[in-house]
């Protein structure tokens, strides 16, 4: 069995890739997927700690995170659809009518 910090390392890397995805991609859906990746990174950490402490709290947490993620996906995708209807694009870089 790998030690805890292996998992944590992996989780950090996943989280970082998620961050980079958010920062670098212009496609809103891809950005959103990167966010999901970040959630997953956190989930991995939870599960690893849960195993480390032999405590179920972490797993419970992950369960709720998944549900919340599902809810967010519904809302987020709905928003994107709406935007797409008006703008015909889901390029986040085109969402800059307000600034300053």
């Amino acid at each position, binding site marked *: 069995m790998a030690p805890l910090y292996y998992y944590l390392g992996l989780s950090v890397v996943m*989280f970082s890739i998620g961050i980079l995805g958010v920062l670098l991609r212009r496609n809103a859906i891809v950005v959103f997927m990167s966010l999901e990746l970040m*959630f997953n990174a956190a989930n991995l950490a939870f599960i690893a700690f849960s195993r480390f402490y032999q405590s179920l709290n972490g797993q419970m*947490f992950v369960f709720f995170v998944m549900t919340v993620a599902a*809810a967010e996906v519904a809302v987020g995708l709905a928003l994107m659809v*709406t*935007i797409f209807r008006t703008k015909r694009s889901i390029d986040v870089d085109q969402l800059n009518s307000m600034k300053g």
Partner: protein
Amino acid sequence: MVNSGDIYAMLPIIVLLVWGMLVLLADLWVPVQRKGITALLAVAGLAFSFGLTLAQMRQPALAFNGMAVVDGFGVFLNAIYLISGIAGVALAHTYLKRMEIYRGEYYVLLLFSISGMMLMSYANDLIVVFLALELLSIPLYILSGIARPNPRSEEAGLKYFLLGTFSSAFVLYGVALIYGATARTDLPGIIAMVTGAPANLPLFVVGASLLLVGFGFKVAAVPFHMWTPDVYQGAPSPVTGFMSVGAKAAGFAALMRVFITVLPGAAADLTPILWGLAALTMIVGNIIAVAQNNIKRMLAYSSIAHAGYMLMAFVPYGNGSVSNNSVASLLFYLAAYAATSLGAWAVVVALEGREGKGLQLQDYAGLGRKYPWLAVPMVVFMLSFTGVPPTLGFWGKFYLFRTAVEGGYASLALIGLLTSLVSAYYYLRVVVFMYFRPGEPAVTRDAWVTLTAVVAAAAVLLLSLLPTPLFTWAAQALMRVQ
């Protein structure tokens, strides 16, 4: 298992949730022209919940296996949310009609969001904190975008959503690390682990600071503030008004609840970070506001700045002798800020026209002459924001600064005062336009909006003359810490 105590403790929230569903259903039968009925229903629910909340004042209790805690702190904040909710409904009714976005779901989402906020201030477990955060945020994302097909509203919704989720990810990671450090997610458990030996403190501190990022996002602390102006501008004004108070208060509720209960141990590490956040927030918010000509953006930056002041009082939270004052002053300020901000947004709502008209400062020219019932309250709000006596904002700042000084952060108080000076400039600009420049402002007459503004102004003025009850309430609204 669930028992009646649990139900009773959570009753204000449960009522609100159930009421929200009922309103949702009822709305289906309410014709478009008579959505006022929905609004009234929503207000009734809020008022009912408000009454229940106040009834809880003297009965601190744990509920749902310690997942939630009912205490004075929570009650105080819940009162603020509910009042801002009522204002949010009052402001919305004609506004929605005027903007042709009459969707009964507005009220439902508002109720749900408030229930999320209320849950936040009762939260006693990080899972509840996280869920409450989502429960209050998701309706706000939707509400921000509810004015579709207005592109600005949609843009605001998506921006808010993406960035909000982004910050949630940090909160989540922070919780994970705290869990990793202590093996617990319930706040009492965490305290026990931190004060006892076994916790992994380095990890704990990192987790706490990631939580700070997430909560900082909610309260709009620099550098996590950048969503604020765009969202405030794009979202329908009643939503913004509600959000500027409710979301901020909920953010601070989370911050205070989590940090003061469980994290004094990490204070030594976190204080410099908080210091920096507070200072930056005050400086950046106030300075950039100077450049704004759109009232909504200006108020957005102003709300950032006020988050800075509140953070300032929060900096010495780890100092046991100050932390009570820290909480009390923050709560008091939130109350003062709520009254002021809701009132100011009411005026904004009154002036806003279709397609983003009536939002420039120039559009306020001549308001003082033509519509004193809006202009005079607006002056009061601007002065209260600035912190000029005799307004509630003055006492709020007074208390905040006093806490900062008491905590040994006179330097921070100095920054706060100097940036207040900067803020006076842009708040006064509003007054300048309203009173010193001639103009023909386009105002939609709306009794509810005017009433909101006048009531808020009266509260700001009168409570400032006799603020003792509010002081006392805030000072007694302590957290129940096991």
